[in-house]
């Protein structure tokens, strides 16, 4: 390896010096030798011309110059001087040789001197000139010698030329090879020393530094002299991962890479630097060496680190950006994406790298995107897509983005790719949309508002108004927009209004104002105004003319109702929730003869008569429990000024939950007069009843007495047929009279007495009736058929039912054909939940059709055979009516008579 050899021959100059010293030594020793030879040996040959003074001078000059050369450490000019002097000496030797007749001694000396002289010549030209001069001189000197012997002359010339040629050949080869060597030497030395790399040659076994270049000294801050022969680890060692040179070398060998970058530590300075180290094995003269090449890359590394940091920071920044940033190659494959993209696609970087839009987006969209990108690459012009729509797999809109795509040169691929930035503007767009919509809504709202809205500047000039406002003022919008709000109010108010509206200290204002319409008609509005930043104001006008009218109506209504209440004969009392009087109508005060102060805030129970208070209390409780329902309470006595009592009827409703009333309304209706009349009527009725009762009794009693007497008489005069006949006739008349009285009494009772419902025992009633009728003539031959179906208890007025059945049965008996084994009376009673059906059927005389609608009339007697009063069926009808029932007649004259009575069951009313 030439480079290695070069380093080994680093000491070539020193060698040259030594060689120069050798040359000098040879020269000096020659001079001293020739001098001593002349002084001590040639003295004997006195005929030779050889002055020793000349030789001494030469020797002194050359010695002197040699010393100079030595001390001046080979200076070229002295070297040249020596060369010159010695050349001159060789020419002097040619003269000596001539002068002494070409004696062999001098010729040999000349040859030696020429040989030595040639040693000093460094250049080919000089050598050639020197040798040529030497040959010419010798030939000339030889030609001039007398006696000229031609053979000798030729022989001498030939010899000298041959010797010169030989010298020339020898020295020329020597010079050329030396020159070549020198060139290489210089070249390598220059490269070795001038290279920016630091080179160390160390012995493999001991790590001793065998050589280093100048750079090494600079690197270590030490002289080269100091460095050599030191152990490399004592000066420089790897730090960091590789702790020693051995491990480093091993690593390099294993890794099979030309160099490695490591941190090196300088042992003496205790500093470290980054270096790129390459190590090669080499062997010189059987000894293995390492050539260590160190390049200081501290700056490079720090630059790289900085670059790395910058890159990292940039990446962080890019990743931090909420926008999607990606780098694609010419084919549209992703090379690099930031985290936003990864997040959006929910993929890792490795998953996404190498994918194209076709893998991520619907085909159409990807195709479009690809087209755009191809165009950018082709033209080299960046494109901005203001709104790019991304769709989900199901086709729904996923995002809208503002996309910028620029051509981006990819050095590693040597092609143009695409750098894209997606800015998600979905929210902006949506917000924009929302704003547009809300603006539209606001516009609609403004236009459709039932209130008038206008906007004015600081001087009251109307800038904008909705159609309602225009409508309110009666102007078209164009007209209205040229108006000033001051001119629209009534003149005296305008200034005040505007002053108030434009008063900035009052931000919001709610006032009532009267404006003038286009047609001059005033109208009242409620203004809700708001002063704006620029001094203008926005106002909402609500036409309250209608409201005013309504208020007026309300007031009138209130007055009306108040008048009604106050002038009503009814007492109206409003109670709060604790039943204290909150309001009492003047009429009530008048009726009760109280003052308002005496009643207000006191419980109403104070004015209720003591005995009626429980009833009243229950009534109030009932009211409180059932709000909103009207309740009625009758016959309550109220105290009039603690002395007199009044009867009232009471209607109450609980309106505590009603926001307006928030109380219990009681309406007392004075019924004292009516009550008094009722009492009076009751008394009258009672008197009448008593009278009837007494009268009937007092009439009956004598009749019964007479009947008793007749009975006794009959018993005591059983033999007197004629008398018995008379007595019987008397008896019949008396019975007739008795029955009439009975009818009369029942009639009066029926019409007067209230119904007193009780459970009716039909069986007992019928039996009693039959019992009382059994004495009727031929009664015993009539078959009685009773059919009672009394599964349900029946409630009604027993007395009246008895009267009804009694009368109907009595008729059946009375008007019967009385044929044995044929005549019958069927009595059937059926009760159910709602009613009782009483059917009394007989196959008696029947009733003629023409009388059928008259038989229920008072005192009407349909039969000529009749011996009744004509009251019986009338009383039946009355009693049935009283009991809310119905009576029907079905009769075939001479065939049968069927009375059907339907009576309601009164159990429900209890």
């Amino acid at each position: 390896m030439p480079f290695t050899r070069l380093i080994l021959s680093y000491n070539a100059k020193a060698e040259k010096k030594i060689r120069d010293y050798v040359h000098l030594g040879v020269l000096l020793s020659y001079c001293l030798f020739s001098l001593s030879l002349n002084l001590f040996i040639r003295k004997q040959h006195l005929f030779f011309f050889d002055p020793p003074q000349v030789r001494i001078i030469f020797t002194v000059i050359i010695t002197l110059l040699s010393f100079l050369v030595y001390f001046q450490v080979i200076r070229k000019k002295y070297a040249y001087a020596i060369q010159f002097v010695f050349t001159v000496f060789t020419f002097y030797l040619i003269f000596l040789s001539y002068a002494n007749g070409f004696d062999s001694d001098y010729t040999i000396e000349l040859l030696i001197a020429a040989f030595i002289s040639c040693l000093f010549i460094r250049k080919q030209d000089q050598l050639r000139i020197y040798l040529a001069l030497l040959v010419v001189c010798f030939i000339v000197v030889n030609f001039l010698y007398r006696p000229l012997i031609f053979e000798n002359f030729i022989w001498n010339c030939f010899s000298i030329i041959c010797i010169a040629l030989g010298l020339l050949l020898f020295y020329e080869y020597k010079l050329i090879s030396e020159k070549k060597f020198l060139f290489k030497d210089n070249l390598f030395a220059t490269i070795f020393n001038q290279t920016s790399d630091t080179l160390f040659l160390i012995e493999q076994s001991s790590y001793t530094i065998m050589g280093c270049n100048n750079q090494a000294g600079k690197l270590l801050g030490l002289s080269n002299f100091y460095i050599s022969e030191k152990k490399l680890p004592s000066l420089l060692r790897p730090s960091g991962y590789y702790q020693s040179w051995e491990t480093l070398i091993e690593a390099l060998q294993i890794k099979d890479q030309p160099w490695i970058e490591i941190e090196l530590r300088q042992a003496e300075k205790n500093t470290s630097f980054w270096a790129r180290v390459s190590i090669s094995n080499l062997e010189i003269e059987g000894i293995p060496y390492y050539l260590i090449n160190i390049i200081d890359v501290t700056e490079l590394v720090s630059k790289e680190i900085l670059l790395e940091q910058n890159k990292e920071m940039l990446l962080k920044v890019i990743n931090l950006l909420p926008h999607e940033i990606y780098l694609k190659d010419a084919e549209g494959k992703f090379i690099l994406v930031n985290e936003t993209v990864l997040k959006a696609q929910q993929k890792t970087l490795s998953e996404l790298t190498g994918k194209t839009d076709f893998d991520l987006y619907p085909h159409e969209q990807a195709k479009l995107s690809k087209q755009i990108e191809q165009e950018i690459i082709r033209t080299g012009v960046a494109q901005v897509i203001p709104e790019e729509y991304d769709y989900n797999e199901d086709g729904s809109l996923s995002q809208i983005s503002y996309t910028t795509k620029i051509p981006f040169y990819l050095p590693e691929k040597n092609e143009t790719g695409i750098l894209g930035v997606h800015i998600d503007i979905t929210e902006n767009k949506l917000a924009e949309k929302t704003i547009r919509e809300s603006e539209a809504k606001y516009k609609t709202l403004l236009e459709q508002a039932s209130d008038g809205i206008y906007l004015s500047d600081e001087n009251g000039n109307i800038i904008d108004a909705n159609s309602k406002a225009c409508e309110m003022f009666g102007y078209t919008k164009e007209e209205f927009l040229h108006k000033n709000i001051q001119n629209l109010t009534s003149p005296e108010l305008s200034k005040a209004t505007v002053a108030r509206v434009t008063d900035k200290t009052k931000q919001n204002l709610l006032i009532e104002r009267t404006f003038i319409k286009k047609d001059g008609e005033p109208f009242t509005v409620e203004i809700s105004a708001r002063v704006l930043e620029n001094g203008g104001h926005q106002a909402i006008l609500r036409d309250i003319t209608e409201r005013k009218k309504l208020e007026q109506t309300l007031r009138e209504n209130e007055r009306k109702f108040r008048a009604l209440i106050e002038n009503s004969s009814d007492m109206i009392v409003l109670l709060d929730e604790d039943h204290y009087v909150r309001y009492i109508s003047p009429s009530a005060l008048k009726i009760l003869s109280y003052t308002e102060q005496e009643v207000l805030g006191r419980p109403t129970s104070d004015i209720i008569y003591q005995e009626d208070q429980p009833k009243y209390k229950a009534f109030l409780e009932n009211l409180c429990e059932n709000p909103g329902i009207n309740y009625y309470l009758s016959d309550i006595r109220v105290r009039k000024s603690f002395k007199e009592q009044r009867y009232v009827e009471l209607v109450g409703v609980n309106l505590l939950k009603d926001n307006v009333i928030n109380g219990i309304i009681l309406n007392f209706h004075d019924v004292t007069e009516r009550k008094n009349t009722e009492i009076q009527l009751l008394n009258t009725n009672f008197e009448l009843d008593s009278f009837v009762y007494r009268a009937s009794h007092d009439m009956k009693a004598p009749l019964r007495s007479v009947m008793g007497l007749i009975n006794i008489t009959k018993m005591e005069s059983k033999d007197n047929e004629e008398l018995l006949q008379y007595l019987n006739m008397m008896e019949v008349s008396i019975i007739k009279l008795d029955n009439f009285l009975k009818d009369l009494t029942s009639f009066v009772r029926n019409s007067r007495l209230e119904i007193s419902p009780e459970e009716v025992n039909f069986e007992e009633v019928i039996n009693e009736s039959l019992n009382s009728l059994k004495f009727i003539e031929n009664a015993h031959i009539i078959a009685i058929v009773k059919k009672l179906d009394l599964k349900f208890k029946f409630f009604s007025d027993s007395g009246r039912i008895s009267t009804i059945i009694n009368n109907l049965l009595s008729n059946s008996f009375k008007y019967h054909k009385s044929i044995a084994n044929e005549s019958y009376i069927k009595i059937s009673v059926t009760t159910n939940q709602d009613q009782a059906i009483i059917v009394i059927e007989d196959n008696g005389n029947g009733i003629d059709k023409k009388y059928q609608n008259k038989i229920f009339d008072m005192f009407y007697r349909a039969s000529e055979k009749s011996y009744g009063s004509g009251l019986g069926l009338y009383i039946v009808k009355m009693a049935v009516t009283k009991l809310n029932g119905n009576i029907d007649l079905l009769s075939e004259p001479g065939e049968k008579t069927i009375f059907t009575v339907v009576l309601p069951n009164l159990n429900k009313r209890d």
Partner: protein
Amino acid sequence: MKDFFTETVLLVDDNDTDNFIHKRIIELAGFAKNIIVKNSGKSALEFLESVTPENIPGVVFLDINMPIVDGFVFLFEYDNFPEEIKKKCKIVILSSSDNKKDIDRIVDNEYVVHFITKPLSEESLDELKKILKK
């Protein structure tokens, strides 16, 4: 079956005619041997107060409509009589009233056993006998 028979009956009626008729009927029917007639509630009560045990009537025929002490008053006072009298005396109402209310009101009384509408007849006495036998 042996017929009901009582030694003494008391007739209480303000109407003397009725008293006569009733007495005669009772006699004719042979209802009782000894018939005491009182023409007012008051005298009837006085009689019962001072009656000797052998003279305690088995049946009292009582009219309702009487002046001053009527049937109701009589029954009210009768309540205060000693048990021995009340035990023996069976009160039968004999009235011309056929008013059901009157009848119900008086029959509800614990001492009244029967109600007979005037005039008293042999049939009604027979019926009474049947009731008293029980």
